[in-house]
């Protein structure tokens, strides 16, 4: 299983709106012991180094020594002080977001922050975050000019953002690694992976989803430093929040216990970025072989093979080339469709099939009415794909105004059950059955044998295996390629 790099990032600042409006009823960073210090203690209890994005510009109201004390506390307890820019505190015009400033201005703002932190703790920050996610591409250029290698401003779909880069994926733009806030979709809304916004169950489900996606290898658990010490309904008021502290503890325990999760401070995410770039390069190397032509292609493919081979007999045409053939013990025959399985049995073959792996025979080719009796069994349900739809539809639909909206009409309030149901029937269940099979069997070679018209099974296997390093893949089409018995 591929590793998932996990960073815990904290915005170290007071609740900004109450502070700006001068109605904050206490210290919004320390929160009478329930703010920054409590958070650091919890992180340390789980052995986690936090990436602490500090708003040094609050020095304008709190005083420089106070912010230095915040930074030295972070550093002395083994966490990493990074830079959070809130230019409103130093701009006479009161501009709030970085994208409202020119490239030169942004460079100056970031450089000022970098120097402040370096002088306070003797270490330059490695990462920058634009407060309120109000960044644009100039922000990344400014980071590069200020000597920073990482920016963590992106939040998918956020209205303040003036750039959209990776949407939950690490990307490299203008030479800077962009580390977005990780968001999951619930009912059409993007929720940050923040203990104040999601439940432990949400985190578990999302982590499982993330592990399946070849282009995603990173999760950002983020929160403000005051989350455990202010009233969630009125952040101007200090109030301990033990329930949220418990939830945070549970989430951190989950992440630490998961062997696939690598808890990594943001400053050290270069290997994660490199791994993604390698995967993309691997896709180029692992292109599926074009359909074989000529006789006896199947025999040629299997000749001399010692390693495990998964031979998927996708359609009825696929049974002709294998009729009468003998296969070595390293070859696993698999028939995903029930009618093909039954015909294979009548031919004396004894293939494996989805029920052997506690799954249903594939039904993507069957009419909707014919699959009613399959509900709520072996991982299939028409309702099951609602949340998955929310996740996979983010880029193309849910964060795409031209698709999601028509004037004042929002076409995706609370997701889309009907689309999710249809997609589950047509392809999503098929993807799960076939990809889980490959993951479980770990063959060296996967051969998909079907007819001249191809098959859904071929499409799924070809594209899935092309997206991630793994077995070789060969597509054979009976009637074009394969010839008879050896």
């Amino acid at each position, binding site marked *: 299983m591929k590793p998932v790099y996990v960073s815990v990032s904290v915005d170290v600042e007071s609740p900004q709106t109450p502070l700006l409006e001068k109605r904050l009823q206490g210290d919004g960073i320390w929160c009478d012991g329930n703010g920054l210090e409590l958070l650091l203690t919890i992180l340390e209890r789980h052995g986690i180094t936090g990436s602490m994005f500090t708003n040094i510009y609050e020095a304008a109201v709190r005083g420089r020594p106070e912010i230095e004390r915040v930074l030295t506390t972070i550093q002395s307890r083994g966490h990493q002080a990074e830079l959070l820019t809130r230019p409103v505190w130093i701009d006479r015009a009161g501009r709030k977001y970085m994208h409202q400033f020119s490239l030169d201005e942004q460079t100056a703002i970031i450089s000022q922050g970098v120097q402040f932190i370096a002088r306070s703790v003797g270490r330059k920050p490695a990462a920058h975050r634009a407060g309120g996610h109000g960044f644009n591409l100039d922000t990344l250029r400014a980071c590069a000019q200020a000597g920073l290698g990482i920016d963590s401003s992106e939040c998918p779909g956020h209205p303040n953002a003036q750039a959209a880069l990776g949407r939950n994926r690490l990307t490299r733009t203008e030479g800077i690694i962009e580390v977005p806030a990780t968001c999951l979709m619930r009912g059409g809304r993007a929720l940050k992976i923040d203990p104040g916004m999601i439940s432990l169950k949400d985190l578990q489900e999302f982590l499982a989803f993330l592990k399946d996606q070849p282009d995603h290898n990173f999760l950002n658990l983020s929160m403000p430093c005051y989350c455990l010490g202010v009233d969630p309904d009125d952040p101007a008021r200090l109030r301990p929040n033990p329930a949220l502290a418990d939830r945070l503890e549970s989430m951190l325990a989950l992440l630490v216990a998961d062997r696939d999760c690598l808890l990594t401070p943001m400053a050290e995410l270069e290997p994660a970025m490199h791994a993604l770039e390698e995967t993309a390069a691997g896709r180029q190397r692992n292109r599926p072989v074009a359909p074989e032509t000529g006789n006896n292609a199947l025999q040629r493919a299997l000749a001399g093979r010692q390693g495990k081979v998964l031979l998927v007999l996708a359609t009825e045409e696929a049974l002709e080339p294998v009729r009468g053939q003998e296969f070595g013990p390293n070859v696993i025959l698999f028939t995903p469709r029930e009618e093909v399985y039954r015909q294979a049995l009548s031919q004396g073959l004894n293939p494996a099939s989805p029920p052997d792996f506690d799954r249903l025979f594939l039904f993507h080719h069957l009419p909707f009415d014919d699959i009613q009796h399959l509900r709520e069994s072996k991982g299939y*349900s028409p309702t099951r794909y609602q949340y998955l739809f929310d996740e996979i539809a983010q880029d193309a639909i849910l964060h795409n105004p031209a698709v999601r909206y028509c004037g004042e009409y929002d076409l995706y309030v609370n997701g889309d*059950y*009907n689309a999710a149901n249809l997609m589950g029937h047509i392809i999503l269940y098929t*993807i799960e059955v076939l990809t889980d099979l490959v993951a479980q069997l770990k063959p060296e070679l996967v051969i998909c044998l079907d007819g001249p018209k191809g098959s859904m099974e071929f499409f799924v296997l070809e594209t*899935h295996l092309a997206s991630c390093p793994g077995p070789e893949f060969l597509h054979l089409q009976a009637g074009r390629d394969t010839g008879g018995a050896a």
Partner: protein
Amino acid sequence: MKRLLFISESYSTGVRLIPVYLEALRHPDFEPMFFTTSLPNSELDPLLEQHGVQALDHKAVLTSKEVADFTKIRKQYERSFRQSIGALPNSAMSYRGVPLLDTFRQYFLNWNCKKLECMYLFDQMARKLRPDMVVVAYCCGSAKKFYVNRASQLGITSLHLQYAYRSLEIPMVQKRFNSDYYCLWGPSQVEPYLFEEHHRKNAFLTGNPTFDLYSMDKAEARRMLGVPAEARIFAIGIHLFDVQMKRVKEELSRARLSGDEFFIFKFHPIALGRMEEAAAMLDPLGISYKLVGLDHSPYTVCRASEYYVTYDQETLFLESYFFDAVNLLLNKDDGSRHTLLYDFLPGTLLEMEGLHQLDQVPALTEELDPDKRRYAVEQLWYKTDYLASKRVLEVAGRLLD
């Protein structure tokens, strides 16, 4: 006067809404209107006709100018959709590396245009009919979700009448609801039906208004069905024709019948087209039977019967508790027993291997616990007083005050 707009789509929703609509017609505080998303509808039309409901549809609401205006809106949306989606790679929507966008982009466009149509139509209805409340019996998807969503955007309250049971014993991912308030069948439904807590806070127990129209006694129900007044009647629900009729034939051929049995086979709409085939299977058995399709309500059938027989715990299985039919739950196809849907059901029904054991029914019926049965009915249906529609209107009135 409070204006209630009932929105129905199919038989399943119509049968829940019509009783409340009829009650509202008689109520001095309400002015009800009934809209259906799909006329003609071969299942819903007979129901509307039976109860004299004058339903509106889109043709009654939209003028030709409004249709033309909508066409412009739709075409503009289609253009911007195609432009935007066309610029995206196939992999912009993918799962486990499998790109999906090309396969579904046309579906998304068609379905989104349908959603637009619903929301636009609702805007015109809201403007012309000025409803104070929208009453639905399904809001998770299809057209009704978009009427409810649009109602919510326009500040019109939505009230949802429960349409199917849920059980915590059979864990499943729930469909998401979209309405503001919910009227539920009974206490056993609150937690399973409304899995999101904010919906539970807006739930009311009313019972099932569907039954309000079936207060006839057993004798009258039998007269309506044309079945013997004195026979022991077994109602059998058929929806998975191949599996269930095969078992019926095989098991009844082995059963030791006493001769006073009469079987009513009630066919789900899915199986309606095969009633002749069913007759051909049953005739050689020499049993007395009647096949019922859409000509009679399943509740008339339950009212007429001593026993309701089922191979599965479907909705009619639970509904028969309201009508005092003793439930016979037959084992699954693999011979195993069912996990009962609710922890209050044991002792209130007969569980048997199959119809071949019908001779054991009288003795087993003696062993049923009437107190447990009464409790089960309360948990499922709240009250059996045929006043659920009135209670729904009380809720509507309170919410609109």
